[in-house]
């Protein structure tokens, strides 16, 4: 009885929301997967600038301790300049596997990011919105949104001290996400606007990441 009721509600919801919209085909899902499936998801590692050098005080504390204890980075004291002690954070051999030194352009300075899993596209769904040009009339059209999980997390992401130090990881790894980036139709293909490289900075608020 309950099952029949739920099925009926699902059908009703489908009728009211998506009756006029064609359901995305398996091909649409395949097209999105071809662009972002397996993409490494990475978050800022301690700093927006490489090398990571701050005062020893700024790099003390439980968060950096957790990264050190997980064997990802080590603290290296910098030569004494008569001022406060300063420290450089260097990746260990193990840490280098998940480190991404991103350069937006070959001449740009590098930014350190730590990658904690890979994108797995779970579902796609059409969304109707104004797709007309900014200078033209309103035109209702379809874009494609997708939902994903972050899978294949490295073992260190399961450590209790890491989870305690960086609570965003729990949400990132345990929950389903709806991608900000949407795909638009180009000919017979759905094309994602935005980052489709093999590594990407995860869609996170600016205050989330592996900050000290």
């Amino acid at each position, binding site marked *: 009885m309950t099952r029949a009721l739920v099925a009926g509600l699902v059908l009703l919801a489908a009728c009211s929301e998506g009756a006029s919209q064609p359901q995305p085909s398996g091909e649409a899902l395949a097209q999105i997967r071809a662009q972002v499936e397996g993409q490494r998801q990475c978050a*800022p590692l301690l*700093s*927006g*600038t490489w090398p990571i050098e*701050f*005062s020893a*005080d*700024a790099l003390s504390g439980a968060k950096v301790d957790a990264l050190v204890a997980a064997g990802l980075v080590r603290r290296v004291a910098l030569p004494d300049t008569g001022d*406060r002690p300063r420290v450089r954070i260097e990746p260990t051999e193990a840490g280098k596997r998940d480190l991404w030194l*991103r350069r*937006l*352009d070959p001449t*740009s*300075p590098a*930014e350190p990011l730590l990658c904690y899993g890979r994108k797995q596209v779970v579902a796609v769904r059409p969304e109707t*919105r*104004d*797709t*007309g*040009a*900014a*200078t*033209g*009339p309103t035109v209702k059209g379809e*874009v494609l949104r997708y939902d994903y999980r972050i899978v294949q997390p490295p073992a260190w992401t399961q450590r209790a001290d890491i989870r305690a130090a960086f609570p965003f990881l729990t949400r990132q790894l345990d929950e389903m996400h709806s991608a900000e980036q*949407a795909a*638009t139709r180009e000919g017979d293909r759905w094309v994602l*606007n*935005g*980052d489709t490289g093999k590594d990407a*900075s995860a869609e996170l*608020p*600016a*205050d*989330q*990441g592996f*900050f000290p």
Partner: protein
Amino acid sequence: MPDRLQSYRNQVSDAVDAWQANVCNPYIIAYNTAYKSYNDTFKKQNDSDKARAELFVTAAAILPGSILMATAATSSLRVLANRGALRLLAGRSTTRALNVYNAVAANATATFAIGKALDIVKDETGKVIKDSVVKAMSNSRDLLATDPLNRDKQLNSWLINHKLLAFEAADAIERSGSLSERDKARAYDSLRAAPIANKPKGKIDPARLAPKIELGFYMVWVLDSDELVTQTIPGNMHSLTSKPIDALPSSRDYPRGNTDPSRGPVQWVGVTRPGGDVEDQIDKVHKHVRGNAFYAPGGWFGKSDAGQARLKEVAAAERTLTWLSDMTQPLAPLGLRT
């Protein structure tokens, strides 16, 4: 040196390091990436120093991402003095950002570095601090409008000027013979609450910001592409003069033109288009950032050449710049948005 002063200096030094690493440096990466793409699109070798300075101040003002960039832009807005419409947009945007930390009515430099300490510290000590504020303001004025090849050094200098101001203010409070210990403690509380003494929350993501800055550059170009054309001899299409329009398209003061010679000289708003390759790139970046093209598709003979169609482009550029400003406004004093 008393522990309190040293401890405050350490707090400021660590926060300044974080502003530098997580806001200034990534912002410069985003700006340089956007600027390179913009120049490649227009196939320009290089802009003049003045044009580069205007672009940087425009980016910092309209797409600040943080109160630091907005505050730094405020002290260099003079470089946009001759560009009425842009100056208006930039001024609106920086005012919103300064509002986030109540620096609109106050001196933004002072508020960024020492908070409201001057509300507590008066007399001789207050005068010493005010002198330091004047020095920092003078050293920061137009800083973003100079030395276009070293944006990182400019921002670093801007930060160091403010750090020195904070140190001098703390030193003056510590040495003061007129302030009670209770007032000194209150003044220190204000110093410690100032933005420069606190780390920004997170970091600017240059990968997200760069396309927005690039789109902003194109929108500024489109916004600047209008001019008021006047026919000086009635009926003679060879006797035309033109002048830039300082009003925004959304303003009631935006010229509407005149087609009736009996009511004065015939005038119309002329708009220059950037050309096919540039328009393609504008569409591409607009699609990346906003999910749709900028230009309405043309018919058999390309885009409509009607004056109204071109005016719509200028009006849309203003709307897009306002949207970009909305998207990159910090919502809290230490908050970042890209």
